[in-house]
C-alpha cells in the first residue's frame, strides 16, 4: 500500500491531475455505455411486449447478451466510405455527434456528492453542449454526398434549432424557481417532500421540456430525420459498422441525458419521493432504499426511458410541418405564458415550492 502511494506521489503533479480526470471520465462513461446497451435491449423487449411479440430471446438467458452480440457484430463489419463523399468529415461526424452527448454528463449530480464538475453554470453548460450535438448530424448529412442524407440533415437542423428554444425557456422557468444555475443546487431547492418538486408548480414547463427533449433526440414521434418510409435512414444512410454504431450510441446517450435532466430539473433528481416521512427512512435496512440516493435518480431515468419507448410504440410519426408548428406555435407560447405567471408569482412572493 505504501509502495503504491509513494509511486503515486512520484508522478508529476500535472500528470496526476490528468490521470485523476481520466479515471473519473472512465467511471462515468463505462456505466453510461452499459446503460445504452441495455436500453437498446429494453427497447426491443418493451416494444415487443406492446406489440405481442417476444423480442430478442436467443443470445444468453432471455436474450440478455443480445446487446453484446450486436456490438461485436457492428465492430466486425466493414466501414464503407462512399467514393464521392468527403472522407475526413465523413469519419469526423460520428465523433462530433458522440462527444457532446458524453461530455454533458460531467455536470450531472448523481447524488449529493457524486458529481464530476460541480460548476456554478451547470445548466448553461448543458444547454451549450446540447446545441453542439446538431453538428455531427449536419456534417454527416453533407459529407455522405447523398440526397437522402442531405434532406435529413436539413430537417434535423431546423428541428433541433427550433426545439432548443422551447427547451431553453423551460429551463429558464426552473432557473427562476431554484435561483441557481448549479444542478446540485437545483436538486436541493426541491427538497422537503414529494410536493416540493418543481414538476407541480412548473407542470406546463415539465411537459414542454420532455416533449422538446424527445424532439431534440429525434425519437418517435418526431423522428423525421430517419423517417424510414421517406428518406431511408436519413443522415446515417451511408454509414455502416462501427461508424453507424457511434451515431446509435450518441442517440441513446442523449435519450438517457434528457431523461436524467428531466428528473433533475423537475422530479428532484436523487431526492427520494419519501422525503420527510421519517418513520420509513428510520427503518434499519429498508430505510436506505427510502432515503435519498443515486438509486432514485436511476429509477426516475428508467421511468422516462420507458416513456420514450412507449411513445415509439404508440404514436405515428409527425409530418415535418406539424413538428414545426408544434414547436413554434404551441410549445414556445406555453412556456411564455407559464414563465410570465411564474414571474408574477415570484414578484408577489407567492412561492409554492418553498
Amino acid at each position, binding site marked *: 500500500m505504501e509502495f503504491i502511494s509513494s509511486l503515486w506521489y512520484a508522478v508529476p503533479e500535472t500528470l496526476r491531475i490528468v490521470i485523476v480526470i481520466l479515471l473519473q471520465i472512465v467511471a462515468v462513461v463505462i456505466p453510461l455505455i452499459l446503460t445504452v446497451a441495455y436500453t437498446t435491449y429494453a427497447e426491443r423487449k418493451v416494444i415487443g411486449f406492446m406489440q405481442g411479440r417476444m423480442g430478442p430471446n436467443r443470445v444468453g438467458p432471455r436474450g440478455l447478451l443480445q446487446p453484446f452480440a450486436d456490438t461485436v457484430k457492428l465492430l466486425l463489419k466493414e466501414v464503407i466510405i462512399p467514393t464521392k463523399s468527403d472522407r475526413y468529415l465523413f469519419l469526423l461526424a460520428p465523433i462530433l455527434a458522440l462527444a457532446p452527448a458524453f461530455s454533458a454528463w460531467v455536470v450531472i449530480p448523481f447524488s449529493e456528492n457524486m458529481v464530476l464538475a460541480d460548476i456554478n453554470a451547470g445548466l*448553461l453548460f448543458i444547454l451549450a453542449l446540447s446545441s453542439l450535438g446538431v*453538428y455531427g448530424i449536419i456534417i454527416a448529412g453533407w459529407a455522405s454526398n447523398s440526397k437522402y442524407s442531405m434532406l435529413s440533415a436539413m430537417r434535423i437542423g431546423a428541428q433541433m434549432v427550433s426545439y432548443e428554444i422551447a427547451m431553453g425557456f423551460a429551463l429558464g422557468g426552473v432557473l427562476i424557481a431554484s435561483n441557481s444555475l448549479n444542478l446540485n443546487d437545483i436538486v436541493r431547492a426541491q427538497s422537503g417532500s414529494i410536493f416540493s418538486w418543481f414538476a407541480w408548480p412548473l407542470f406546463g414547463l415539465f411537459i414542454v421540456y420532455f416533449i422538446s427533449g424527445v424532439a431534440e433526440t429525434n425519437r418517435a414521434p418526431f423522428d423525421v430525420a430517419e423517417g424510414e418510409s421517406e428518406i431511408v435512414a436519413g443522415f446515417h444512410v451511408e454509414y455502416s459498422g462501427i461508424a453507424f454504431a457511434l451515431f446509435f450510441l450518441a442517440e441513446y446517450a442523449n435519450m438517457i441525458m434528457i431523461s436524467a435532466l428531466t428528473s433533475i430539473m423537475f422530479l428532484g433528481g436523487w431526492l427520494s419521493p419519501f422525503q420527510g416521512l421519517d418513520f420509513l427512512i428510520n427503518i434499519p435496512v429498508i430505510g436506505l432504499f427510502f432515503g435519498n440516493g443515486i438509486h432514485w435518480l436511476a429509477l426516475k431515468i428508467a421511468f422516462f426511458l420507458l416513456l420514450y419507448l412507449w411513445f415509439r410504440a404508440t404514436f405515428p410519426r409527425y409530418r415535418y410541418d406539424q413538428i414545426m408548428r408544434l414547436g413554434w406555435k404551441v410549445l414556445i407560447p406555453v412556456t411564455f405564458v407559464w414563465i410570465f405567471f411564474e414571474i408574477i408569482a415570484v414578484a408577489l412572493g407567492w412561492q409554492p415550492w418553498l
Partner: protein
Amino acid sequence: MFEQILFYWFTAVLLLAAIGVVVARNPVYSALSLILAFFTMTALWLLMEAEFLAIALILVYVGAVMVLFLFVIMMLDLKIVEREGFIRYLPIGLGVAGMVALEMIMVLQRSNFDSERYVAPDIPADFNNAEALGELLYTHYLYPFEIAAVVLLVAVIAAILLTLRKRDAADQAAKTQDIDQQVRVKREDRVRLVKMKSE
C-alpha cells in the same frame, strides 16, 4: 503549470483554426474552422474564469448562428474555389494587412495591458460570474439592456414581414393550414356514399 499547458494548447489550436478559415479552399471547411476557432476561444475565456461569457458564446455563435451559416453554405453547393488573381490582389491585400497589423500593434501595446496596471481582481473562489453579470444588467444597465431587447424584437418582426409572401389578389389568401378545422373534420364532410344499381 497545468493551466499554462492548457493555455498554450488552446492558443495554438485557435491560431491554426483561424488560419484555416482563410486558407481552406472548401467553404464548408472554412465554416468548420470558424466553429473550431469559436470553440477554442471559449476555452480561453473559461481559463480566464469568464464562464458565463464563454458559454453564451457557444450557445449563440456556435449553437445557433454557425448552424444557420453552415446550412446556407451547404445549400448553395459552392464549388471549391480556385485561387485566381492572387498576384493582382496582392498589393491591396498586403496594404490592408499591414494597416490592420499596425493598428493592432498600436492598440495592443504591452503598456496598455501591463499586469502592473491591471491587477487581477481578488475574487473569492465561489464567485458567481453569471449572478454578477445579471445584477449589473438588471440594475445599472437596465435601460440600455431593454432598449437592445426592443431593437432585436423589431428586427425579428421585420425579418418575418420581409419573408411573408402574399399571393396574388386573384389567388385566394395565402395557402395556410387551419389545424382546428382539420381536426374537426367529420366523415360526412369527406365521404359520400352513393347507392346505384350495378350495371
